[in-house]
C-alpha cells in the first residue's frame, strides 16, 4: 500500500470520505476515484457505470468497480443528473489505475445543488483524515 506521503491528491479537486474526487468544470462536476482508492483496490477489472440521464442524490451508489474478486461501491459526491459517462472504461477499466484524474474519470454530473461541493474535503483535509487512520 502507498505511504500517505506518496499519494497524489491534486489541489484543484475536492474529495469524499470514500475517496471519490470531484472537479468543478464551469457548471458541471466531473467525478472519479482518487489515488488512494485505486491503490487500495488494486488492478481494476470491471467498472459498472450508470447511464446518462440517471439522477442520484449525494451519497447514493452510482457505480461499482471490481478488482480481484472484490466489488466496491462508489458514491455520488454531489447530487444531480449524470450528463456524461466514460465509456472507455468498459473496454479499458485499467485506466482507473493508470490515470485516476485523467482518462480514468467516471462520470460528469449536472449538480442539482452546486453548494454541495462545499461539503467535500480539500486535498489537505483528505490527507489529514488519512493520517488520522494510521
Amino acid at each position, binding site marked *: 500500500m502507498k505511504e500517505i506521503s506518496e499519494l497524489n491528491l491534486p489541489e484543484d479537486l475536492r474529495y469524499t470520505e470514500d475517496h471519490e474526487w470531484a472537479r468543478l468544470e464551469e457548471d458541471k462536476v466531473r467525478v472519479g476515484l482518487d489515488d488512494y482508492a485505486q491503490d*487500495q483496490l488494486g488492478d481494476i477489472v470491471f467498472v459498472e457505470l450508470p447511464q446518462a440521464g440517471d439522477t442520484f442524490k449525494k451519497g447514493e451508489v452510482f457505480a461499482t468497480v471490481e478488482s480481484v474478486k472484490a466489488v466496491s461501491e462508489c458514491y455520488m459526491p454531489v447530487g444531480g443528473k449524470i450528463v456524461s459517462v466514460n465509456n472507455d472504461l468498459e473496454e479499458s477499466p485499467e485506466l482507473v489505475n493508470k490515470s485516476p484524474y485523467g482518462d480514468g474519470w467516471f462520470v460528469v454530473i449536472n449538480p442539482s445543488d452546486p453548494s454541495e461541493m462545499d461539503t467535500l474535503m480539500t486535498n489537505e483535509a483528505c490527507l489529514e483524515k488519512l493520517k488520522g487512520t494510521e
Partner: protein
Amino acid sequence: MNKSKKWLCIELGTLEYGRAWDLQTSLVDARKKRIIDRDVILLLEHNPVFTLGRRGGMEDLTVSRNFLKKSGISVIQVERGGVITFHGPGQLIMYPIIDLNAARMRVVDYVERLEEVMIMTVAEWGIIAERNSLNRGIWVGNKKLGSIGIAIRKGICFHGMSLNVNISMKHFGWMNPCGLRETGTTSMKQDLSQKVSMSKVCGAVKKHVESVFGINLINTSLPELLKKL
C-alpha cells in the same frame, strides 16, 4: 500488524443464505457507524443455494431454472465479486466484516491472506493447494477447493470465502465454476477419500486467521453481538 488486536468470532452453525446476508448487511452498517468497534468473522454453513456475483448470469448454470425449482434450490444475485458459486452443507463459509481502511490493508492483500488461511488449513490434512493465475481462490491441480468473493461498502468488506470440506460434488456439476469452463471442483473429502471433521477444520481456520492476519479472536455469540446493535 499489532498482535494485541482482537477480532470477534461467531460460529453460527447452519444459517440460511438470506439470513446470513441480512446479518452481514447490519454488521457492515454497525461497523461503519462504530457501533461495533471491532472487526468480526462469521463462520457457518449454508443450506443448498446458488449465488451469482455482480457480473454473474444464469448462463453459467447448466440446468434449467425449472429443474432447480423442482430441486428446491434457489439462485440469488448478490453484490460480491466473482461469478457463480454453490453453497451447501459440508462447506465451511467465513464472512469477515473488516474495516479495511482502519486495517490499512489493500484489497489484493486481503484476498491473498484469505487464500493463505485456506492453503494453511488444508495443509494440516496433507493437501497441497495452490493459487492459480486463472482465478482467485485455492486449487488442487485444475480443481477448485476454495473460493473467494468480496464486497466493499464504505470501506468495510463483507462476503468472504468458502472451503469445500465434505460438501457433495453433485451440485457443482450443474454450473461452470466461477464461470470457467474445463475446470472442476473438489473437496477435502474427495481429495482424501474420507470424511473430515468440520469442527476440526473450523478450528484450524480460526488458528490460521489469527496467524495470517496477526490478530487474536475472541469467541462470542450472535445474541451477545446483537445486544450492541
